[in-house]
């Protein structure tokens, strides 16, 4: 298993970002910090999908005309790219909604810390 660390730097970065993001989301009491963690987690999944799409010595998936077209192996895999475009937009939408919730909470409780909000509720 140790060889993963040597041959797959992208994958290691993915694991670090994913776990870091999730840890901050769960543990940090600051609401905005939680969202920063959420952003890290979502982008790490994009990293995971993009490294699935990489082909060695390939070019970007734009085929200008059928005469000069290369075989499919010569282009990067477009499908994960498409999926991740969707995931990016989903991420920013979730971020917008969650920030709206944060602002609404701040209006009521004048703090961004989850435990202080809980304290003020009682």
């Amino acid at each position, binding site marked *: 298993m140790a060889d993963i660390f040597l041959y797959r730097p992208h994958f290691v970065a993915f694991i670090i970002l994913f776990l870091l993001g999730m840890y901050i989301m769960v543990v940090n*009491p600051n609401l905005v910090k939680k969202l920063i963690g959420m952003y890290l987690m979502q982008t790490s999944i994009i990293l995971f999908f993009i490294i699935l799409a990489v082909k*060695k010595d390939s070019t970007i998936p734009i085929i200008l005309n059928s005469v000069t077209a290369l075989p499919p192996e010569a282009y990067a895999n477009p499908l994960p790219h498409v999926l991740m475009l969707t995931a990016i937009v989903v991420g920013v939408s979730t971020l*917008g909604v969650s920030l709206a919730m944060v602002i609404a909470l701040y209006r009521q409780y004048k703090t*961004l810390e989850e435990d202080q909000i809980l304290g003020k509720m009682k």
Partner: protein
Amino acid sequence: MTLFDDYLLLLLSVVMALGAVFVRDLLSGVLTLAAYSFFLALLWAGLGAVDVAFTEAVVGAGLSTVFFLVALFLTSHQEKVRKKLQVRIIALGSLGILGFLLLFGSVDLPVVGDPKSLPNKHVSSNYLRRSLEETDTPNVVTAVLADYRGFDTLGETTVIFTAGLACWMLLRRKDDSAT
């Protein structure tokens, strides 16, 4: 483009991510996050995902940062320092299991950059072979996004529309006029 010249970008983005998380001032954290996002965009471009890179630069580094900044502008900048040991231990334990699972599963994943691996062969080579002829669109990503998987894109547009409605519903004030 080869695979292994983006060590630097990976390292930079991980450092930026750590910075965004551990800096106490939230404003600095958000700006560091924008830098992180920008390095990721460069990384995607280097890995051949130009459309994703463009979107990440525009949406990730641009739009989300603007949202974050507006929200911080209306709330507060400072993060308070506290420690809850119990929660941390539970979280670290479960994340350890998750991390082990990720590593465990990754052993059998296809080698990065292998053009013959299954995710690069089965459906996606069909797109690469047929899209120009069938949809008259040179950019295969656009063809897949808008046509082959156009239904996903409709869903995606709906997601952002839902978010718009949601923000409007959540932040609506009583003193706004009703209609």
